[in-house]
């Protein structure tokens, strides 16, 4: 403790250099935090996918429809608890594609039972069950367009024009929250019966089914049984666990993880090399002083600790500030809700960041400190840098 003053004055000796180094460490960790949030935005779906849920779609591709009559048939298969149809509505708000958000038609009660991570207050649930034109919207979506309960929202759909040819009208009856941080609350759900009665064509067709199985261990076997049930029918199915479905979807975009990892390593390699070099230089410059301290009787171990604490303090101040600001930015929600609906900094990434902060402080300080320590006192005193 009594050496804190010494460390402090060493940091102050070149204020400009110290602050520039701090700033570059800050930038590196800010970037680290934001890229982790972007990565999480792409992959959160996999980790949150329900282990007891299957996605059942048309075998040819997701854009092909399935008949609504498949639901009851699926529910008769042993191991299937419920099968809930979904229809992709592709709603467009104010004719502006940039306003994109997910809109799906579902039967209300079975949907809420299947997706329990969508938390809706009981009275709002009742309102949805009682209002045919009712829709529930996620918290993120409500904040994005400043919508509240009671609002009437007109949407057009390029896929499902309604019989009157105009826009579809929806009444917001509920706003749902996510049960965990990564739950996507950027979408809107409305009633399937409303869609089915209003659409100009395609009556009785749905996009895909979400199915709950009674035993997650048996999910793969149940999926196989579902596909077998509909084999050789005009609408063959492909059933798979939700996690596999989401993962497949993400892999379609490309290997996001590799690309982001490559960027991150480039960033870390360069910025931290620059910062680490400066920090190391600051220690090398003082070899002479370290010699004086040794001559005064400071032990090698203490000197090493002093130097390491100094570089550690630099790394910690810059790194923690960077991570903190990244956390603050992500806490305010997604800057591009249409592209990245889920946007937050996971605790795991924060911990990895902390580890990197310590690694940087150690790596930048340890080499020059060891060099200085091993230098005989007489030589160190004679050396001018």
């Amino acid at each position, binding site marked *: 403790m009594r050496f804190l003053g010494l460390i402090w004055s060493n940091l102050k000796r070149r204020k400009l250099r110290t602050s*520039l180094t701090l700033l570059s460490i800050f930038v590196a960790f800010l970037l680290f935090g934001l890229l982790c949030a972007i990565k999480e935005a792409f992959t959160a779906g996999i980790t949150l996918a329900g282990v007891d849920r299957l996605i059942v779609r048309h075998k040819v591709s*997701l854009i092909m429809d399935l008949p609504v009559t498949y639901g009851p048939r699926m529910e008769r298969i042993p191991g299937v608890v419920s099968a809930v149809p979904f229809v992709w509505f592709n709603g467009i708000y104010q004719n502006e594609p940039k306003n994109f958000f997910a809109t799906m038609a579902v039967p209300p009660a079975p949907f809420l039972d299947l997706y329990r991570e969508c938390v809706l207050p009981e009275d709002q649930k009742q309102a949805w069950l009682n209002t045919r034109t009712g829709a529930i919207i996620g918290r993120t979506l409500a904040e994005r367009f400043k919508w509240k309960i009671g609002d009437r929202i007109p949407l057009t759909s390029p896929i499902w024009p309604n019989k009157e040819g105009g826009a579809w009208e929806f009444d917001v009856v509920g706003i749902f929250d996510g049960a965990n941080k990564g739950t996507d609350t950027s979408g809107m759900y409305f009633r399937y019966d409303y869609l089915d009665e209003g659409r100009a064509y395609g009556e009785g067709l749905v996009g895909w089914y979400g199915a709950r199985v009674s035993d997650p261990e048996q999910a793969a076997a149940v999926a196989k049984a579902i596909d077998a049930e509909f084999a050789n029918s005009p609408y063959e199915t492909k059933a798979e666990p939700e996690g596999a479905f989401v993962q497949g979807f993400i892999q379609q975009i490309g290997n996001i993880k590799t690309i982001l990892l490559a960027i991150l390593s480039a960033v870390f390699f360069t910025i931290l090399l620059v910062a680490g070099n400066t920090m190391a230089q600051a220690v090398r410059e003082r070899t002479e002083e370290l010699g004086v301290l040794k001559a005064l009787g400071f032990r090698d171990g203490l000197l090493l600790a002093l130097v390491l604490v100094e570089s550690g303090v630099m790394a910690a101040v810059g790194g923690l500030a960077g991570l903190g600001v990244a956390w603050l930015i992500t806490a305010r929600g997604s800057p591009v809700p249409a592209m990245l609906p889920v946007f937050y900094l996971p605790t795991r990434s924060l911990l990895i960041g902390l580890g990197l902060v310590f690694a940087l402080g150690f790596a930048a300080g340890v080499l020059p400190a060891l060099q200085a320590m091993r230098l005989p006192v007489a030589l160190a005193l004679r050396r001018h840098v």
Partner: protein
Amino acid sequence: MSNWLAQIWALTVYNVRTIPQRKGAAVAAAVGIAGVVAVFVGVLSIAEGFRAAMAVTGPADIAMVLRSGADSEMTSGLGREQVRLIADAPGVARTAEGPLTSAELFVIINLVKRSTGTDVNVPLRGVTQGIAVRGDVKIVEGRAFEPGRNEVIAGRGAAREFAGLEVGSRMEVGQSEWTVVGIFAGGGGSAESEIWTDAAVLQPAFHRGDSYQSVYARLTTPEAFEQFKDSLTTNPQLQVKVLRQGEYLAEQSSMLIEFISGIGVFVATMMALGALFGALNTMYSAVAARAREIATLRALGFGSAAIILSVMLESVVLALLGGGVGAAAAYWAFNGFEAATMNWQTFSQVAFAFAVTPPLLAAAIVWAVGIGVFGGLFPAIRAARLPVAMALRE
């Protein structure tokens, strides 16, 4: 004036020559800048490659007709009668057989992506006169499909990225089986990422009756577009939107290109800041280490402007070295790297190659020089302001 230039030249050469004495710091600064340039070029080459794959500048004489309100071919739909009306519209080029229009279906099938071994959405297009309308489709292997048969031709990019599209192989879609009889190149837009077949065979296979999703029309001249468009949009029997193919492609790819460019510029800006701090540190310590030499030069009569410029030039030389290395590394690592991604707007795969274009390289070098200039400016001013007498005594 010439004396002044001679001063700058002499000082710069002298400064640059001393760089090897400060190897560590100089290399660190240059590597920092190389990193910025490499990441900048790398990320933006994805956007450039994607733009090139979508061939956003489509030919001006090809028009597309979709149902009004549709935002892509996927969500559009046109009946047989509407298709006939569109073909008869003024402005459409004609041959001996009739108007040059192609009514098309656009669906998605699942194929396995070679690189990951997982299912991906691959666009399958049914065409009537698609090859004649586009004019630039070339069969590079095998032959074209025969109308009325379950035969397909695959785009060059699709054949490369997705498994099972070699000439002669069979693919199963739903309950029907199709033979790949050829590989084609060209076709405009992302056609090379698609599989083409006869629309008349595709309609029953996908329960589409006799409906289509879009009509492509070759116009007599690019200027005939307005006439063509007006006649269709004012026709009360049609509710359609008409656009040039280039406009459509730009619309379909804007989201992804903006997103990638946005991330690229953001990351590069942040990294540039980090590298700038590194360059500043390097140049400040370079100036501090040479305080006495600089004071000597001032005492000898070198002007302060010459000193400022020479320090900045030194920093720019370092930046250019780093930037050059970074750009070369990025070119070597990324140019021509082949990949496929999902275009969220059409929900289907587009095969593309990363493209490191000359304007991109130029922009990267500008960034590097910018970092060099700012990294050198403040240290240079400090160097020039050093009180001569005090620095000499140090």
